[in-house]
């Protein structure tokens, strides 16, 4: 397998409505930044890989067709990946696969969502005439699993508030983040209205417009650039209504993590990974994913959060950028995790940089906690 690395990451400002740009303008904003960071011109791009969540979020069918010009794909191969919420991550994996296959030297990959163009709540509530319509939004779907996690491990009530406050405090150091809430603390979170018990308003992700792009190249073409070397990457999927699924601790997530640890030669994730960007759209998913990803034993995830281990100054920082809780353009959120992990090991994360970060993890999930995409990046190729 050809070794590949990220040489540039570009992100737009995330906001509830990016009315200042068209879809083409939005993706181009991220692409231009990524290519500038990567120090390449268009003639270096061998293929373009686009990823996004359902087309209903914008009302454009198969947008790689309309966006071919904006993403610089004219005359080049283009692929469009769609794996629900994990798509940002799986797109990065497919893009890297282009390079690792030996078929392409350098690829540009971009993911986006411009949810303000359509109606995100409507798009997230598909209504089949033969199914009872009790759909209560994404939070309504996940809240029962959070409740089951709480039943199993009996954490204190404030853990969710703590995660929500921490991620938004981190966002204050990330000028691109959508939610900028100065002074946010646990009390502010716990004072917000309850949405789906136990999730309160500020424990839930926003709906954002935004795009994230990366340039990935092969070892031979990196040159003197800063690189985030891809040491391991994988995807896993489970059937939606498969009997025996544990949606609190999904097997797909366990298997996917084991796969990338094995690829990257990681035996003890908690010790060897310096920081991680994981897909936490609702606060309690931080402790749940810490356990699912093997950073700690089952039932101990909430303790890591409570101890402050996952804070910026903790020993296992999670979601330094503010995470999905601070910016959530659905199609891009996965790639933002992967891209932020890359920025960390390249030393380019600015005010939310973890000192001496050498190994970082990017994680994304989607659907009914059934689609997983993850990667490990390193500042060193070996």
């Amino acid at each position, binding site marked *: 397998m050809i070794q590949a690395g990220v040489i540039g990451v570009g992100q737009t400002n995330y906001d509830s409505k990016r009315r200042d740009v068209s879809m083409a303008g939005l993706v181009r904003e991220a692409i231009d930044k990524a290519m500038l960071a990567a120090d390449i011109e268009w003639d270096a791009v061998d293929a373009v890989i686009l990823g996004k969540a359902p087309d209903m979020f914008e009302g454009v069918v198969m947008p790689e067709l309309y966006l071919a010009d904006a993403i610089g794909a004219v005359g080049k191969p283009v692929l469009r990946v769609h794996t629900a919420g994990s798509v940002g991550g799986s797109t990065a994996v497919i893009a890297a696969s282009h390079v690792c296959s030996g078929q392409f030297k350098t690829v540009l990959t971009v993911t986006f969502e411009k949810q303000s163009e359509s109606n995100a709540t409507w798009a997230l509530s598909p209504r089949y005439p*033969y199914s009872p319509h009790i*759909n209560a939004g994404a939070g309504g779907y996940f809240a029962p699993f959070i409740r089951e996690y709480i039943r199993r491990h009996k954490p204190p009530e404030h853990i969710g508030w703590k995660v929500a406050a921490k991620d938004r405090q981190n966002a204050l150091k990330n000028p691109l983040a959508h939610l900028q809430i100065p002074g946010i603390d646990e009390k502010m979170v716990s004072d917000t209205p309850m949405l789906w018990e136990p999730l309160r308003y500020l424990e839930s992700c926003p709906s954002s417009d935004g795009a994230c792009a990366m340039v990935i190249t092969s070892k031979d073409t990196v040159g003197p650039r800063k690189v985030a070397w891809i040491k391991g990457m994988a995807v896993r999927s489970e059937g939606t209504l498969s009997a025996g699924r544990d949606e609190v601790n999904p097997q797909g997530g366990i298997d996917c993590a084991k796969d990338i640890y094995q690829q990257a030669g990681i035996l003890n994730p908690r010790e060897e990974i310096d920081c991680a960007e994981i897909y936490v759209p609702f606060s309690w998913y931080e402790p749940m994913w810490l356990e699912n990803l093997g950073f700690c034993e089952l039932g101990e995830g909430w303790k890591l959060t409570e101890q402050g281990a996952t804070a910026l100054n903790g020993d296992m920082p999670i979601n330094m950028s503010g995470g999905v809780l601070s910016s959530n353009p659905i199609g891009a959120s996965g790639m933002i995790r992967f891209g932020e992990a890359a920025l960390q090991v390249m030393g380019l994360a600015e005010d939310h940089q973890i000192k001496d970060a050498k190994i970082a993890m990017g994680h994304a999930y989607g659907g009914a906690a059934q689609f997983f995409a993850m990667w490990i990046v390193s500042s060193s190729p070996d």
Partner: protein
Amino acid sequence: MSDDQIPKDYKESLIHLEYQYTAGSATTTFLNQVKEGRLVGQACPKCKAVYVPPRGSCPRDGIATSIEVPLTDKGCIESFTVVHIPIPGNPIVPPYVCAMIRLDQADISFLHLVQDIEIDQIRIGMRVQAVWKPKDEWTHSLENIKWFAPIDEPDVDVSTLRFKPS
């Protein structure tokens, strides 16, 4: 005004599409039974998991669920949440309880409402039974069941609900 001060205009361009949704054979069979007030799941011939509502396939094994399994309308709450925001287009008034109902002998749960109980009394593992609409209102829909209400039987340990192939 500079370029970034000029407000950009936008206009709503409505999209109207009509679709004829297909329930598929398994769901059709299921809904025909629901119209008669019966809940009938389908089992996978390989792992024997009982699915309700059946979708026609067992995602564990990737084969058709072919065995019909009549079920009662009693079960337990596998988990639940109390929803405080309204559902677009639905008259139900928040807060209301949306629960994952695990019917007896079924191996997956489905989402439905729980009522006839104080919200703070609801527990994971609680035994419940369907409360049906009047018979003359029955259609091809799980909405024939208004909600699930608690029954006086001991709670279930939900950790025993996890399916294991035989």
